[in-house]
């Protein structure tokens, strides 16, 4: 197990990078996904149609293609990330990180949108009618009756989307980001005789992150189900 004795720092750093990719693009996806779902279920026809098209098209495009398209087209639109220069310890977050975050966000937000929409759709119409019947205003109906139920119902699909995002951060490797898969390739080359343990060790890293997210989501869901 030479790769671990010599490389445990590199291993941890690469997963720190993966985790940062996940956290930053996860938060941004939730924000953009919420905006998208507001467009899709709102009363403005043009936004509803545009949101629907965006979600359908981006969801049917492979993440690699979204990445490539953004990477090639962004500089032409004047979108550059040269200003991103964050260094935490020996880990550098530069324009590569920023491009990966934007591509992951553009892609994941469409799935967030659909997860939230399924939550909204799961609230029975009678709930809204009853809320209006007892004289609640639009704001009251939303904040007291509809959105709490819709949000609770969308926790399981949202968790699945976030879990997929954790695994999708690996695609950033193809575009030169030094995250966990990139580190695995380096180690696979350097310690050719230990490929199986290297693979299992890196898979274990992802499995731990996935199970932590899954655990929290389960906990939230159970907590709210009994409430």
């Amino acid at each position, binding site marked *: 197990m030479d790769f671990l004795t010599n490389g445990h720092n590199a291993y941890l750093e690469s997963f720190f990078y993966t985790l940062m990719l996940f956290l930053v693009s996860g938060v941004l996806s939730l924000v953009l996904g919420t905006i998208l779902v507001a467009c899709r279920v709102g009363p403005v026809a043009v936004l509803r149609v545009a949101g629907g098209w965006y979600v359908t098209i981006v969801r049917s495009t492979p993440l690699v293609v979204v990445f490539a398209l953004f990477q090639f087209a962004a500089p032409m639109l004047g979108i550059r990330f040269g200003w991103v220069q964050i260094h935490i310890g020996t880990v550098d977050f530069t324009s590569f990180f920023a491009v990966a975050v934007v591509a992951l966000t553009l892609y994941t937000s469409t799935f967030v949108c659909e997860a939230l929409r399924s939550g909204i759709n799961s609230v029975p*119409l009678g709930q809204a009618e009853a809320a209006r019947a007892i004289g609640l205003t*639009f704001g009251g109906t939303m904040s007291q009756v509809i959105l709490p139920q819709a949000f609770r119902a969308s926790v399981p699909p949202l968790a699945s989307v976030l879990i997929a995002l954790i695994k999708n951060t690996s695609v950033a490797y193809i575009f030169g980001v030094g995250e966990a898969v990139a580190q695995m390739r380096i180690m696979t080359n350097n310690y050719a005789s230990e490929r199986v343990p290297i693979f299992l060790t890196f898979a274990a890293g992802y499995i731990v992150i996935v199970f932590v997210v899954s655990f929290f989501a389960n906990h939230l869901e159970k907590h709210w189900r009994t409430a």
Partner: protein
Amino acid sequence: MSASVLFDSPGPRTRTRHRLYSVAAAVLLLLGAAWVARGLNDHGQFAYAKWEPFVTPSYVQALLVDGLLKTLEMAVLAIAGAVILGAALGLGKLSEHRWIRWPSAAVVEFFRATPVLLLMIFIWYRLGINEDSSGFLAVVFALTLYNGSVLAEVLRAGINAVPKGQSEAAYAIGMRKSQVMSVVVVPQAVKIMFPAIIAQCIVALKDTALGTAVLAPGLMYVGKAIYNEQHNQVPTVLVVAFLYVTVNLLLLWLATWAQKKYVGEKKLVVPMVGAADTGSAV
């Protein structure tokens, strides 16, 4: 639009207001589109020379035959393998014997929680990265293992979604477990699972694009070859995206049709990785 959970049916004044918002939103969206188009145009992305390859027969043939066809081939092989593996693992997870159930569950959870790309690269190295066909096979095997594990969960959720009375009635008339499964439960479960399986085809098809990391053939590979030669990155990636989206939309339409025809309103809920055993339809 008659009744919505979110807002009351709008009256005449609100409708006028919504129309105004629609116009404003349309203007903003058009401005955005114009900004993107201008940026691309300033860099000559709409020049005929950049698009010429896509009306040149030899390039079109390369895209469709070496690209799309290979991609579809990988996806079809992977899904075929995944259905078989998924059936085996799914039945394994439903087994009454602990020594079958636990290993099946472990395998399913492992491959569902591991990124496909990681798996693909590992298999690629195992097959030998200098072999001609290793990229192709790495994509097929990795996607088989991942999608097979997902389909195992789909199968279990589908079988659990068949009303309990069905198997109880079958047992009551004296059928064995194997008969109950093969004659009564599985035929009904397959109907419920059909849309989910087609949806998984879309996932598999999209994931074939990851093959670019292991030098596998397919749309991305051909696209790369074209833009390395012609230096028309944006048009090429747009064409590749268009081809992927077209096939995926066809599959999506098929899934929606199957949902309407075989399942109806019910939605199959596949539990997430690491979730407690609550796979059932609601």
